[in-house]
């Protein structure tokens, strides 16, 4: 209990739809209502109907029954679609809006970055705005003075410091705004996806700064739509869905749960025995697809240094048809890794079956992915068989996310993971150009 920074118990926030539609009332309406409402209530009581609060206002819960803890020094990511209640949760925790039910305990000074440049005033100079924005975010004046140079340095706008910000480019404006926010020293930081500012170089700087912040042992709650930044920055993550807490746990696990994962039928090999279930059309009927080692035996796990064969067996129903065969690879998050077809092979080994009219009967097409091409991770195979003479819509047979397999690196030591979807061995050449 001692080292909890944030405790949230059954938090809920209710909004009225009518409030959303007409954000403010007029005094005139209210005065009219003052007299009309009792009359309406009296009428409904007389008619024996329960008095309705207001027929026009329907309520909805932006957040409901959300409970979780954040330990001190932990970085928690919140993921969820638009309208899932992420921002509402941060607004409640930063006391901008009050909850309707439940409660939360926050131990430590809270800084919230729901937007960069909060309180920036266009008429004032960059210098004035640093002080203004810093004070808004809860920095003391001496604290800002102490950090002033670091802020200016980070923002790269030193020469325009005494120009009103209305003359800044949007990039300069964002950089200055982020710099003030990034130098906020609070024990707890609530961040709402403010990283995507400025050009690419500045974004990298922002991410690096955020990583520094998280390494400082500060407690951070971080909202993002970018699974990449969530994975990079957070220890744990939680998924919000329609205002409810769907899951909370390790960041990898949560991202896997949240990302649209292809549903895979089998690992290693799939064979259709009954004709009813086999993927088929007028031209072809699949018999089996297998992922094999060089020995021709199907399996689901391969070493990085092994070639991987995809063997596709299908029945050709129409004698004389020419086929094009294709495989596609995704990673486990559904990102495309590669597409390969038998008409686009290495120059030294063209497919002998290419553009050859085939007799009716069983056909096997095998695609070999060379050793040291794939990285040590999970892959998912999709398969397509396309008869040449059929139109684009009629005859092609495409089965998505059919099989999965895993590539492993038996020699892999801890912490030496190669980043990337593929891991080819490339040619390198290093030589001395001139002596010192």
């Amino acid at each position, binding site marked *: 209990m001692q080292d909890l920074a944030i405790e949230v118990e059954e938090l809920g926030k209710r909004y009225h739809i009518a*409030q959303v539609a007409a954000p*403010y009332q007029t005094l005139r309406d209210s005065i009219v209502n003052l007299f009309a409402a009792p009359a309406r209530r009296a009428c409904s009581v007389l008619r024996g109907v329960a008095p309705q609060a207001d027929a026009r206002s329907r309520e909805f819960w932006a957040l409901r029954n959300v409970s979780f803890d954040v330990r001190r020094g932990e970085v928690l990511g919140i993921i969820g679609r638009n309208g899932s209640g992420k921002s509402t949760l941060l607004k409640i925790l930063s006391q901008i809006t009050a909850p309707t039910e*439940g409660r939360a305990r926050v131990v430590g000074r809270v800084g919230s970055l729901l937007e960069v440049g909060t309180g920036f005033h266009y008429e004032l100079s960059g210098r004035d705005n640093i002080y203004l924005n810093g*004070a808004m975010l809860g920095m003391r004046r001496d604290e800002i003075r102490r950090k002033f140079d670091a802020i200016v340095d980070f923002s790269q706008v030193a020469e325009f410091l005494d120009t009103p910000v209305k003359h800044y480019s949007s990039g300069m404006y964002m950089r200055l705004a982020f710099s003030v926010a990034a130098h906020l020293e609070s024990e707890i930081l609530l961040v709402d996806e403010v990283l995507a500012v400025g050009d690419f170089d500045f974004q990298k700087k922002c991410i690096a700064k955020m990583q520094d912040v998280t390494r400082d*042992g500060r407690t951070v709650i971080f909202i993002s739509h970018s699974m990449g930044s969530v994975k990079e920055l957070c220890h744990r993550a939680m998924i919000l869905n329609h205002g409810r807490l769907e899951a909370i746990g390790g960041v990898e696990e949560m991202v896997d749960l949240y990302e649209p994962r292809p549903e895979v039928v089998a690992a290693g090999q799939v064979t259709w025995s009954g004709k009813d279930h086999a993927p088929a059309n007028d031209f072809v009927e699949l018999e089996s697809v297998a992922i094999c080692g060089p020995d021709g035996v199907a399996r689901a796990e391969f070493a990085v240094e092994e070639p991987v064969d995809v063997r596709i067996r299908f029945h050709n129903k129409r004698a004389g048809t020419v086929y094009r065969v294709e495989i596609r690879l995704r990673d486990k998050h559904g990102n495309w890794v590669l597409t390969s077809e038998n008409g686009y092979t290495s120059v030294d080994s063209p497919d002998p079956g290419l553009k050859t009219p085939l007799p009716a009967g069983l056909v096997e097409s095998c695609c070999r992915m060379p050793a040291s091409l794939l990285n040590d991770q999970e892959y998912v195979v999709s398969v397509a068989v396309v008869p040449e003479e059929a139109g684009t819509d009629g005859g092609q047979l495409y089965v998505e996310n059919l099989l999965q397999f895993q590539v492993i690196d038996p020699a892999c030591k801890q912490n030496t993971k190669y980043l990337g979807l593929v891991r080819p061995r490339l040619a390198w050449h290093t030589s001395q150009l001139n002596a010192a």
Partner: protein
Amino acid sequence: MPVVAKTAGMPSSAHEVWIEPPRAWAGANWKQLWRHRALLWTLTWRDIKVRYRQTVLGAIWAVLQPLTTMAIFTVVFGRLAQMSSDGVPYPIFVFMGLLPWLFVSQGLNVASNSLVGNAGLITKVYFPRLIIPTASILSSLVDFGISFGVLVCLMAWYGLVPSLSWLLLPMPLALAVVTSLGVGIWLSALNVKFRDVRLTIPFLTQIWMFSSPIIFPTSLIEPKWRTLYGLNPMVGIIEGFRWSLIPRGVAPDLGSIVMSTVVALVLLATGVLFFRRVERNFADLI
């Protein structure tokens, strides 16, 4: 490198906050206000800076507005209507009444729009919301200071020199600040919920101005009604202000000054209570 202790200036238990559904009525959150006092100064300073930067005339406004009003009132009420002024030159008499009035009316004008004008802050950062109308009223003090300088020059022109009673000036001034805050806080909170409040303000200030003793002395009011007249807090403010500046003629009625003070304090107290009650919905309504 262990950097955890960097921010631990105070024991963290001092920063423990419970976030709960709000209670129906809550008083002012003094602790929070004190913690955010730096923001009050920063916002006041911003309002001042922006006000003088955005207008061409800048500070000249603070001189021109009371001077022209004084000139018109002097011609219309002093010359044409031969209004009594308790033995003080009429221009000075009117100017002394106008100064606190312009401060209060300008204060409640800026304050009433302050929350809506700072919607961007209210939906994005937390701080005690009372700071916003308070800062806008404090920033009006600068205009008051400039106009006061004009008054001193005018008095010197008429050969009126400062006396010891000037030491009492902070009292009517404080009463003016309390009144302006009370009404300003009421209006600012109402304006978030009811946007047509803003439209009633010119009307309200006009009535208030002519029911205040700016163009006429309270000596025109029958003595038995004077305490009751103090229900308008401007009465206590203007009487006190005039008497501190030029302590001659009829001494101000003590009953009306006490009455004005009570009314101003009640306005402020109820304003803060009302503000705190509706404050929690600001971010959702604005």
